[in-house]
């Protein structure tokens, strides 16, 4: 469950203030946030992930007030409850596919379960690339690894930042479906921000900034 109240953010004093509409999502509800570049989509996503502190307003994830958490607690909370999907870069270069997932579990204090990693890899069609280096993966494979990394630890919220903008129509659809399926399986909220109108039809809820 996610709730935001009167969120605003300002990068530097004297610059424009971003203010965001209130969001309320019940469990398992998904949301698409559309908007042109530079409107503050990523800023909103980073506020939700606790990577930025809002100037004003509150964010509640599962009744936890992100503002109230101190930096170390916030790191832990983020690790345990939030999964982030990025546009292009997803994983740590020096580790292979399997070790990336393992590292993800370790840092989120989750039980390191090799079997679970195998299952997620199989679901996303990455089983054969288990020992590959990240640099050897294609863009589509990387995007799938990104999804695997965002769901492996059963987060409450999956936040995806332009996950489809560098993909063709076919892969775009596949990625959105995979994200929705994984969110459903782990009972997580999925929030996707994008300027990609191709995926508008895939979501029931959407807001435009």
């Amino acid at each position, binding site marked *: 469950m996610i709730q935001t109240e009167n969120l605003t953010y300002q990068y530097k004093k004297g610059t424009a203030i971003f203010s965001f509409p209130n969001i309320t999502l019940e469990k398992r509800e998904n949301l698409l946030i559309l908007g042109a570049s530079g409107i503050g989509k990523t800023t909103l996503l980073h506020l939700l992930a606790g990577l930025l502190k809002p100037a004003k307003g509150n964010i509640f994830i599962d009744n936890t007030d992100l503002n109230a958490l101190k930096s170390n607690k916030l790191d832990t909370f*983020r*690790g345990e409850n939030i999964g982030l999907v990025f*546009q*292009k870069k997803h994983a740590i270069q020096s580790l292979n596919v399997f*070790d990336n997932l393992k590292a*993800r579990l370790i*840092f989120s204090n989750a039980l390191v379960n090799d079997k679970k990693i195998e299952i997620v890899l199989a679901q996303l069609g990455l089983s054969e690339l288990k020992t590959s280096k990240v640099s050897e993966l294609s863009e589509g494979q990387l995007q799938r690894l990104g999804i695997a990394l965002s769901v492996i630890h059963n987060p409450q919220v999956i936040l995806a930042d332009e996950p489809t903008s560098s993909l063709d129509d076919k892969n775009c659809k596949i990625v959105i479906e995979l994200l929705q399926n994984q969110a459903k399986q782990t009972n997580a909220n999925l929030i996707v921000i994008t300027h990609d109108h191709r995926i508008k039809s895939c979501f029931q809820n959407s807001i435009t900034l």
Partner: protein
Amino acid sequence: MNIWSISIQNIKSKPLYTFLSVFIASLSIALLLGTQQLKRSFENQIQNNVGKIDVVVGAKGSPLQLVLASVLHLDNPTGNISYKKALKISKNPLIKSAIPISYGDNYKGYRIVGTTHEYIALYDGELKKGHLVENAMEVILGNSVAQKLNLKIGDTLLSAHGLIENSIEEHDELLTVVGILKPTKKVIDRLIITNLESIWNVHNHKSEENHEGHKHQENHDDKEVTSLLIKFKSPRGVLTFPRRINERTYMQAALPKYELYKLYEYTSIGFKTISLIAYLILVISCITLFISLYKMVKERAFDLAILRTYGASNFQLIKMVFYEGFIVVFSSFLLGFLLLKIGFRFVEANDQQNIFIALPFQDLLQLGFLILMMVIISVSCAIYPIIKMDVSKILSNEK
């Protein structure tokens, strides 16, 4: 898998840079340890070997040469002195003990020293096997000699003239090994010890052969020794005795402590220079390490930001960088130590006169501590970007 293994993976992913860092650091560590070991060995030689000898009396010449030759057995002697005269000055009431030594032959590069039983006691030598020399042509071996030449009691050897290994000027008389000494870490470890008569016998024979028909009448007057190692009853002897010898006889008296201290003073400039260079290389290697880590932190900014989104705290990331530095430096230390061991082994194999001692643990610890400090400084500088890291900004710049 944990932070350690991520650090190891990071290191593995940039082998060339890691190799370079390790190589430079290990070189400086080997140099530092090496100079330290040389210095310690030198000090040890002076302290252990000079310990009980107040004055060396020998033929006139360079006093340093006399000391190096007769105490450390590193140089050629200045000449010989008459045994009769040596016995005479030994009777001086200030003298507690005067041990004559005579040498000039070697076996496979190890010096054969003719002397009395007191000589072994002078170095606190103890027999490991066999008995002391009782008759002429019997020898006992220092521990290193026995080990390196693999000689046992009952073995025989032919001495060669001079102090350098050669087979041209071999004597005909067989020397028999009757005893082997325990290791002392002192000069007698690398000596072959016999009595004075053995030396005289060998050389008298030689002169007989060389000057056929001119058979020498053996008497005390003819006999010579190389030098006399003197210990006084009280320090007063050191003040008056050498001057008397130097002024009134054809012999000279040298103070080993003074001579070797002078030598040490000269050579310590060399040690200091090498140490300074080694420290400089260590600083350079620390800078290399810092650059390597800093580059890693900068280039992998996105990786580190991703780790933050995984729930890693700043502290964990810092730990990761620290481990990386630690692994590099620890392997450098091991490699440096290994390089040094190989280097010394190589030198020892070529040199019978080896005077090296193992480096005391305390010195190793001291250097280890110094290196640890430098790692901490390098890492502290390298982690600055982590502390200043703006995860959100790095992630936003992805596109």
